[in-house]
């Protein structure tokens, strides 16, 4: 077990293009860190630099306090799960899992015991003698994890391990990975482009864009206090709505009417002409369903709904709006960068599933203005970010996490204790 510290890591390819640019990050011992970002943001490259499959152009990579820049992958004592699993097709599942132990020349009975343990954890016992070709996608994935956990590695590295599975299996394996990591308490770095995985698995999430770190924080902080337009747009599904607005006194004029800001936030916006207001879909509601007491903290407006989507537990309404040309290009740029080609300027609004709002009609909506963020359209910077509140969220997550690990460890100690008693009896 070890911490991973990166100092000013740079990766330049032959043509001088920096795939990873000046990344500094400390991953604590036992922490679950997620690297997330759209394709081509350098997250996989960074992971491969940690494990040693990619050379580091400059900067220091420290694992457990030791510099490993020039060490070969096999000397770093890390284990990795590849996107396509990379199982050895000529070996049985047992031998696949045992492979790292065989290389260490471990004695036969130790190999057998450790593979059995791993197979227990991953429920692979009945498949041990089969070849990888005869396994399903989920089983292969478990074998790859078995190969990673069988050796007492200093850290686990995952490179989009679930992207080849279908949606249902992905959900199962996600919780499986979370459980495993909590149980083993091993430092983990996990690369994904799926934000559900990022939000649910990570103690902290590192959002990368074009090889540069945007923000490293707990999922909650990322969601509630994003540092810029990019993070705000990337985290959350459906994504945050960005409305063009102009400041008018303490209120913002938006296509959906005025939104009141408190003193502090209004001051932060300053004298900018045009800003972008970021509003998450769930800050909206069907005005007729909002309690009178709550109505005061927001504003109401009427708009024509283009399309509604009813999903049973929730309902989304799409409201098109007009935006000035300069903002439109900015938003198009952003959505292209986020791998989601949004064609029109429209707001996605989450309303109660019982709402009777229907397509094509003028309807009244209510908007909770307490949590809206204001962004500078030119730099993308979040003008109303409350760094303190954000840090508090991350601190809270860290405390919860420590508690969970403690709990899991005491439980596993108790479990092994019981087992010993059973075996003795």
């Amino acid at each position: 077990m070890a911490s991973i510290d990166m100092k000013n890591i740079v990766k330049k390819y032959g043509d001088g293009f920096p795939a990873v640019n000046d990344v500094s990050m400390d991953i604590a011992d036992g922490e679950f860190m997620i690297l997330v970002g759209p394709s081509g943001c350098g997250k996989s490259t960074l992971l491969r630099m940690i494990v040693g499959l990619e050379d580091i152009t400059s900067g220091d990579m420290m694992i457990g306090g030791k510099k490993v820049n020039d060490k070969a992958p096999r000397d770093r004592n890390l284990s990795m799960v590849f996107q396509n699993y990379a199982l050895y097709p000529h070996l049985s599942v047992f031998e696949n899992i045992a492979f790292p132990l065989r290389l260490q020349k471990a004695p036969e009975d130790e190999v057998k015991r450790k593979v059995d343990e791993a197979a227990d954890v991953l429920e692979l016992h009945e498949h041990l003698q089969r070849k990888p070709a005869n396994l399903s996608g989920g089983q292969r994935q478990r074998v790859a994890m078995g190969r990673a956990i069988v050796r007492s590695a200093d850290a686990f590295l995952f490179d989009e391990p679930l992207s080849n599975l279908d949606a249902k299996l992905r959900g199962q394996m996600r919780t499986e990975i979370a459980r495993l990591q909590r149980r083993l308490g091993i430092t983990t770095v996990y690369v994904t482009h799926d934000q559900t995985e990022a939000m649910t698995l990570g103690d902290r999430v590192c959002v990368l864009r074009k090889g540069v770190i945007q923000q490293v924080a707990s999922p909650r902080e990322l969601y509630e206090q994003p540092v810029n337009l990019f993070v705000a747009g990337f985290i959350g599904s459906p994504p945050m709505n960005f409305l063009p607005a102009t400041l008018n006194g303490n209120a913002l004029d938006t296509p959906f009417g005025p939104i009141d800001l408190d003193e502090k936030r209004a001051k932060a916006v300053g004298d900018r002409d045009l800003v972008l207001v970021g509003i998450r879909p769930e800050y909206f509601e069907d005005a007729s369903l909002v309690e009178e007491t709550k109505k005061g903290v927001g504003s109401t407006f009427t708009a024509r709904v283009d399309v509604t989507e009813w999903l049973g537990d929730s309902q989304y309404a799409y409201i098109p709006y007009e935006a000035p040309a300069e903002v439109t290009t900015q938003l198009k740029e952003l959505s292209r960068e986020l791998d989601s080609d949004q064609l029109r300027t429209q707001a996605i609004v989450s309303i109660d599933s019982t709402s009777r709002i229907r397509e094509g009609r003028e309807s009244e909506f209510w908007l909770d203005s307490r949590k809206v963020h204001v962004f500078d359209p030119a730099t993308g910077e979040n003008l109303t970010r409350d760094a303190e509140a954000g840090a508090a969220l991350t601190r809270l997550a860290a405390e919860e996490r420590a508690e969970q690990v403690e709990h899991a460890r005491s439980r596993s100690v108790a479990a092994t204790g019981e087992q010993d008693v059973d075996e003795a009896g």
Partner: protein
Amino acid sequence: MSTREKVLWVVAGIVIVVYALLPVGWIVSLSLKSSSDIANGQFLPTEVSWENYSQILVGDAAELFLPALRNSFGIVLIATFISCVLSMFCAYAIARLDFRGKKLILSSALAVAIFPVISIVTPLFNLWRQIGLYDTWPGLIIPYLSLTLPISIWTLSAFFREIPWEMEQAAQVDGATTWQAFRKVIVPLAAPGVFTTAIIAFFIAWNDFAYGISLTSTGAARPVPAALGLFSGASQFESPNGPIAAAAVIVTIPVVVLVLLFQRRIVAGLTNGAVKG
């Protein structure tokens, strides 16, 4: 498929098989005819006779044929083995490493492969006599390597390229040295490719005639194809067709056995299941 189509396919299949097997059948039938029966004007022998086989295995021609058979096996197996080992390393380097002159190696290998054998034979003959390799096993193994290496390098590098990079990287992360990763992961995965290459190399060397006839003079190193050419009849008025046919049947056997043996090993798709298929 309609019945009509099926019938057409079967008929076409039979025609092709008969066309391909007719010469083989002919040789077999010829080898079973006694010397007086050879000109009987019919496909099958009037009476099956083992005279030709006994002649080449224990009779007059045995001292020409048996050493040649031993030479052929020894020389060709050694040449195939060396060629496989060398081309395995070479192909691995070509498929995996980036180095200067990679294109040059591949294209010169191709150039060697298309070079007419007959144009090299004469200079080799002179050279071999000078340095004492004439009529020895190494004197044939070396030219056979030049015949088999280019094709082996080309086929094997194609096979190596098919093996996902990740397999090797996974092995390295699991704690393997480059050599261990090569030996424990890449070589087993490339096994079908290596077998295919070995068979091709074996055929090429086994079938060679030009080197065999020119670079040998005695039973010390003369391979079977060359020896066949030197068979003579019992008298100069008798053609040695019968013994030649029998010898041809015998030298075909190892080739057939080889293919049948390794047929299962040459299955594509061994890498299925390595990565998400």
